[in-house]
């Protein structure tokens, strides 16, 4: 049930910028929707405590990659290891229990439930006691005070920024080792986004490993220490954020030239 102890030598196929003892290690991943293959031989690794960005234009396969990690799309070929154990064939709920939480694109809150109920749903798979849950709820409210103010409000009535906070809070309530965030910036005003970027930094600072999908390149590079660029379902560039920021390959990956 429990994953094996963190293995050694898991980084043999990863790129040179990748960590020696990855929390998440993906090797040669192919994912297809029917006849249409979306990911082609994707290999990447995320080390414990890292914040890693996954950037690339629409249709590059970023969301699909996050879905493969959380187990919400099947994998055609390749392997996903989490905390040293092979999770490729595990259903999503088992992965949540192992410590993978997914904040999906478009938030996907339970619109007819209150903010508090949404947050508690994030802890659905946890087996610990009510006191631990209450403490984590407190922690989430400290991070996003507005959620406490609105805890009895229906999630569907929140503003876009508040919904994103609620979605991130719900993810945190699973006590993840790895938090996957899909399109933090989607539809948010710059000032609201700034507030969320701060919160995500704080989550990372408190020890949660992050894998962040983002279309807005600089927002992603602001948060992450390393980045992978996807183009047409393949990793075309990986490296430290500072180097990626300066690279012409970013524009090339998006614009082809």
């Amino acid at each position, binding site marked *: 049930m429990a994953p094996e102890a963190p293995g050694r030598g898991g980084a043999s196929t990863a790129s040179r910028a990748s960590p020696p003892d990855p929390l998440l290690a993906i090797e040669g991943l192919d994912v297809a929707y029917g006849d*249409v*293959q979306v990911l082609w031989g994707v290999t990447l690794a995320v080390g414990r405590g890292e914040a890693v960005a996954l950037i690339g234009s629409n*249709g590059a396969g970023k969301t699909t990659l996050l879905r493969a990690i959380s187990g919400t799309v099947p994998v055609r070929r390749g392997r996903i290891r989490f905390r040293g154990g092979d999770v490729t064939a595990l259903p999503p709920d088992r992965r949540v229990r192992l410590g993978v939480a997914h904040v999906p694109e478009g938030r996907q809150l339970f619109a007819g439930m209150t903010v508090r109920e949404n947050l508690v749903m994030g802890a659905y798979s946890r087996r610990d006691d009510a006191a631990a849950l209450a403490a984590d709820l407190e922690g989430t409210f400290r991070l996003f005070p507005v959620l406490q103010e609105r805890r009895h409000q229906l999630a569907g009535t929140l503003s876009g920024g508040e919904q994103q906070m609620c979605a991130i809070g719900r993810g945190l309530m699973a006590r993840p080792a790895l938090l996957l965030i899909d399109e933090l*910036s989607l539809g948010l005003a710059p000032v609201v986004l700034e507030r969320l970027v701060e919160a995500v930094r704080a989550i990372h600072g408190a020890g949660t490993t992050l894998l962040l999908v983002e279309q*807005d*390149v*600089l927002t992603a590079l602001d948060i992450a220490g390393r980045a992978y660029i996807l*183009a*047409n379902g393949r990793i075309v560039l990986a490296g430290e954020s500072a180097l990626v920021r300066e690279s012409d390959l970013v524009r090339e990956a998006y614009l082809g*030239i």
Partner: protein
Amino acid sequence: MPALLEGQALSRRFGALPAVDGLDFAVEPGEILGVIGPNGAGKTTLLNLISGLLPPTAGEVRFRGEAITGRAPHVIAAAGIARTFQVVKPLRGLTVRENVALGAMFGRVAERRPTRAALAKADEVLAFVGLAERAGAPVGALTIADLKRLELARALAMDPLLLLLDEVMAGLNPKEVGWVMGLIQEVNRRGVTILMIEHVMKAIMGISHRVLVLHHGRRIALGSPQAVSQDPAVIEAYLGRRYAKGSGVGA
């Protein structure tokens, strides 16, 4: 030389959403015009307006100087505009060869053929796209790459003057993409004007003579692939506002 195809203030709304919003454009005879833009930019809607699948809510489309706005798809096909579809839908009960022959029977009116000649045309086109050995196969037996070739073959069999391509490279591996790029260039070299939508940026930037960039249904740039890839408005649309500001290419 007058434009082969022209759009004037072309608009299409879906409810409150303007998918194509007062667009002016021209396709010059003999060129490959690439149309790019983030998801939801209005690219496929534009193709649907040109090929008659959708009537515009305002504006005009002219082909060879003549208004074709709102005409039925088969009338537009008879005038010499053929298209492919992003989601291919060959006739499942027919063979590969028969599917392509239908194109030769219902394409540009001046080039329409009776059955036997249409089948001969199908064989010629299938050889051209590299599908000759699959001619007798039921279409259900084709791979996605071969289905894309079939889609292209059906349109080519119509002997179009203008060929509209909607993401013919989606789902192909890099080798297949390279091969299709060569094929499109060869079609163009033989005199067919091409307007193409493509998400595989290396491909569309690699073979287009000019690139039209759409965002929220409007034109944000038009020019050589090199020029549009350096355009701050294009960089902002694809990479984000702050990236465009910091990239030192304007703004």
